């Protein structure tokens, strides 16, 4: 099905099932520990052996020699895989560094060997016996010192590194009110709870990989390319993913090494990356240094808006696209953005939840707060004043929906924004300094082609099959809701099967495109199934109504299952997209409000209240969508207050590579969170009229926290995370 004109009324609009805050259908499995994750699939292949990864001890250089003798002789060892014995390996299209290093080493903890043994304990012990001599090479690990050499990166996904409209330099120079500041965001780890893990089994030249992966089709392709085998010989299965956040968009060392280990050991092999490896072996959100310049009239109209961002990556990598939202979020006639990319020999940088916007808004939304203060304006009013209903670079191109102002206004009202003291450091609650902050949330909507197969059996049960993944997003449930709505069924008459590459190719989970795209694919398949059912029942497909488990047309009624009385009916289709996203700018919007308390003595920061108001098209399941947003708010709180991969600039690695050193928020950090969704549909996105929301939720959160800390203390911190050591020197004197 091609979606190239805005949606009109369709069966989804009935909202009998879609749009309801249904409990997740996978909930009973997840809460009883019976949902099978990758490493746990004892049942899929007999005689599984254990692989343990050896990571490089240096960041850059060469392996001079490896001695495997002691390790090979260790109890239980079945095989050891290294680049020297693995045969010729390719590199996946989505990987920057090789997943099995050697003799060249590209980054710290790059996998350089896999030890396969009878037991986990034996594999782990033997891995420590692999002796490696290195020749350490010179690496570049310091972004701040690499700005001069940073280059203009090639366009990514069709977006140029630089943009310019009007005369930015002139308008900025002439603006009566200016902000010109630099902001620093550190490297972040996805730190999902389930480590990357895979079980691999070969049957002849065919590989099956039970793994934890967000993008099945991409990863089938990259496995095939890496191993040098046809795509048809690779099957991936990833029905449950214990968190991804972008960290599992691509195949990683566990997948490739499990496959190579299974080949070498001639039996199935399972590999999980040790937690310590997840910080330096797998990708991370790259650090940025950003310069933002805002020029405004005395009345607060932005006349010049400039945003530059520097980031680094391994050779062949790409930039963190932190300037993207600045091209669209606020009005202003004179604009410029630029990205520059430095070569760094740190581990690979790549997508993490809301890549680009998350760090970009961490900076931009502080800058707007600074501008409001210089203008003596309320920061909510300043944002509302500078709203735009059109793409500021192409004024003829409208936003398909844009209710940012409403988000800001409703949020201000619900949060009690009026009680905020415009002057910072005025509100005390005992030893606590209390403040409020706001930030706009913005994230583009992306649609991707997505296919599904639906099967109807004679009992009237519809089974949906698609290689879409549920990474905690609620995909199982919203797909079931979509199929139930389309076929006129209760939710319990729908079975959803995900994550298997044998199923039709979906959009996958990433870029907050999953919900709208994958359900649209199911919509398309269900349209075909409805036609097939109607035909089978001798009804007119054009007027057949599907409701209450029945099909009705022309005064006739039949149970849905009757259509499959003499055999299952199978329909498959793919939703594809025309040019609507070019004709309209499709984005999602929100407003974050945060109240913090800062210990006036110690500078400890605690978040007291959080509210998000989101406008993101139709909300397919408000309960699951709310969870996406509160989870993103939590990750944003972490980015604001604690998350930072500490770079050792001498040895070139992230030092705090465990969950004690890389702190992410715990229960005690997070207050009760409120989320409000505006009632909205966007007919330009798909027949579902939905958009993404899972990444919108993180966008702007950290800046709202930063602005609240400023409001509480009067201390403006522009380098994240905002830790107490950055406040101490400017807190009130002790009595």
């Amino acid at each position, binding site marked *: 099905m091609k979606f190239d004109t805005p949606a009109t009324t369709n069966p989804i609009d009935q909202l009998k099932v879609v749009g309801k805050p249904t409990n997740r259908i996978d909930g009973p499995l997840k809460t009883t520990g019976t949902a099978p994750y990758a490493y746990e699939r004892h049942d899929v292949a007999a005689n599984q052996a254990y692989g343990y990864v050896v990571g490089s001890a240096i960041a850059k250089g060469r392996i001079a020699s490896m001695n495997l003798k002691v390790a090979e002789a260790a109890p239980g060892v079945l095989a050891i895989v290294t680049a020297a014995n693995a045969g010729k390996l390719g590199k996946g299209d989505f990987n920057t560094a090789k997943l099995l290093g050697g003799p060249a080493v590209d980054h710290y903890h790059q996998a350089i060997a896999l030890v396969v043994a009878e037991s986990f304990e034996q594999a782990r012990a033997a891995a420590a016996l692999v002796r490696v001599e290195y020749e350490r090479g010179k690496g570049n690990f310091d972004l701040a010192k690499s700005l001069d050499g940073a280059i203009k990166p090639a366009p990514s996904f069709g977006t140029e590194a630089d943009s310019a409209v009007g005369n930015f330099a002139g308008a900025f120079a002439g603006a009566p009110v200016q902000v010109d500041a630099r902001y620093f965001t550190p490297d972040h780890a996805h730190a999902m709870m389930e480590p990357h893990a895979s079980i691999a089994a070969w049957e002849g030249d065919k590989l099956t990989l039970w793994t934890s992966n967000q993008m099945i089709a991409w990863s089938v392709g990259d496995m095939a390319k890496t191993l040098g085998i046809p795509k048809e010989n690779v099957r991936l299965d990833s029905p449950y993913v214990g968190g991804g956040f972008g960290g599992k968009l691509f195949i990683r060392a566990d997948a490739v090494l499990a496959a190579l280990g299974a080949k070498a050991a001639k039996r199935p092999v399972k590999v999980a990356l040790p937690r310590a490896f997840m910080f330096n072996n797998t990708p991370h959100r790259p650090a940025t240094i950003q310069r933002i310049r805002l020029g405004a009239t005395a009345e607060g109209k932005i006349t010049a808006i400039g945003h530059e961002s520097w980031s680094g990556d391994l050779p062949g990598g790409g930039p963190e696209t932190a300037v993207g939202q600045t091209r669209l979020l606020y009005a202003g006639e004179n604009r410029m953005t630029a990205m520059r990319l430095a070569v760094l020999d740190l581990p690979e940088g790549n997508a993490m939840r809301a890549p680009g916007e998350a760090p970009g808004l961490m900076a931009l939304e502080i800058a707007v707060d600074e501008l409001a203060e210089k203008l003596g304006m309320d920061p909510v009013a300043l944002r509302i004043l500078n709203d735009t209903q059109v793409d500021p670079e192409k004024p003829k191109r409208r936003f398909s929906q844009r209710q940012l102002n409403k988000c800001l206004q409703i949020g201000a009202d619900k949060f009690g924004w009026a009680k905020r003291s415009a002057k910072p450091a005025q509100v005390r609650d005992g030893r606590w300094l209390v403040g409020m902050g706001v930030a706009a949330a913005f994230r583009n909507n992306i649609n991707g082609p997505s296919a599904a197969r639906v099967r109807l059996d004679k009992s009237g049960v519809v089974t949906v099959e698609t290689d879409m993944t549920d990474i905690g997003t609620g995909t199982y449930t919203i797909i079931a809701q979509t199929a139930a709505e389309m076929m006129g069924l209760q939710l319990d008459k729908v079975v959803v099967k995900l994550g298997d590459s044998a199923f039709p190719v979906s959009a996958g989970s990433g870029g907050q495109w999953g919900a709208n795209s994958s359900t649209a694919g199911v919509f398309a398949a269900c349209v075909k199934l409805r036609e097939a059912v109607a035909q089978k029942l001798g009804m007119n497909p054009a007027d057949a109504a599907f409701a209450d488990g029945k099909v009705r047309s022309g005064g006739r009624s039949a149970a849905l299952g009757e259509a499959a009385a003499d055999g299952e009916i199978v329909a498959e289709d793919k939703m594809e997209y025309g040019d609507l996203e070019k004709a309209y700018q499709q984005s999602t919007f929100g407003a974050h409000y945060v109240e913090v308390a800062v210990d006036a003595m110690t500078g400890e920061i605690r978040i007291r209240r959080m509210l998000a108001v989101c406008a993101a098209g139709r909300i397919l399941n408000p309960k699951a969508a709310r969870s996406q947003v509160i989870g993103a708010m939590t990750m944003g709180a972490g980015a604001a207050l604690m998350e930072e991969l500490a770079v050792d600039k001498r*040895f070139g690695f992230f030092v705090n590579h465990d969950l004690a050193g890389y702190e992410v928020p715990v229960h005690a950090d997070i207050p009760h969170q409120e989320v409000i969704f505006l009632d909205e549909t966007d007919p330009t996105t798909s027949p579902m009229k939905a958009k993404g929301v899972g990444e919108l939720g993180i966008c702007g959160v950290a800046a709202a926290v930063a602005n609240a800390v400023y409001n509480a203390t009067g201390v403006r911190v522009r380098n994240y995370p905002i830790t107490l050591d950055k406040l101490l020197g400017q807190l009130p004197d002790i009595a």
Partner: protein
Amino acid sequence: MKSFTYERVATPAAATAAFARAPGARFIAGGTNLLDLMKLEIETPAHLIDVSRLSLDKIEKTGDGGLRIGAMVRNTDLASDARVRKDYGLLSRALVAGASGQLRNKATTAGNLLQRTRCPYFYDTNQPCNKRRPGSGCAAIGGFNRIHAVVGASEACIATHPSDMAVAMRALDAVVETVDAAGKARAIPLATFYRAPGTTPHLETVLAPGELITAVTLPKPVGGTHIYHKVRDRASYAFALISVGAIVQKDGSGRVALGGVGYQPWRVEAAEAELPRGAKAAADGLLAGAKTTHENAYKLPLVERTLAGVLAEARG
């Protein structure tokens, strides 16, 4: 993790005898730090002696009105003990500020004292670390050292001791009771229990190989207001950046010990005389001779400010 043989013992004498048979063995009780380190092969004992079921799990009154805490008393039980909560509130507060509920259910009194530093370079066997591998160098000096020591450190090591419990015990004048391989018992004030890193940071306590902690005793209660303020980036389940444990009397006198600043819980009795004069005077004494890096210099004002807050809280 290297292979090891395992035995469970029922008495302290059996424990030390087992060690005599297998020098290089390690005692294991809660295991919450030892197993962590064994997985990374930072600790590689060939034999483990399970002392977790020794009947050293009682908290009893001593003859002089103090408390004897068995070495195997779990952190949760110690924090929950009614006598500790009433008379040694600082200890209860410090315990529940540490780790997580799950870890406190396993971790023992003796093990808590013996836990090793959380320096990330100590934990990464690819990096130099004089504590882990004597003579290899200290990667924390000149590296990431925001959480490291500001007092008592050496050119060989700037690691801190991570225990909260030990900070309270130091302020409470705790004494560590041990028995050695020959069956000889001794009592070691916590004040002299830890060794300064000097040129031998791998030697962390004065315990001899095979010497087993049997109990920690606390003198009779000293009254006063007990406050433990642990400062950290996240609100729970994190090691201290610094912590201040204080017992403040009505007249403003009192005791203070610090966590997160040195290789041991940091107490300077002479500095306590300055407490009635306020936080600055006391902190100056506590941190005399401090040596900081650009990343951990904040600990000095942080200690002073936290102590000021604690003193204000004690005044009510």
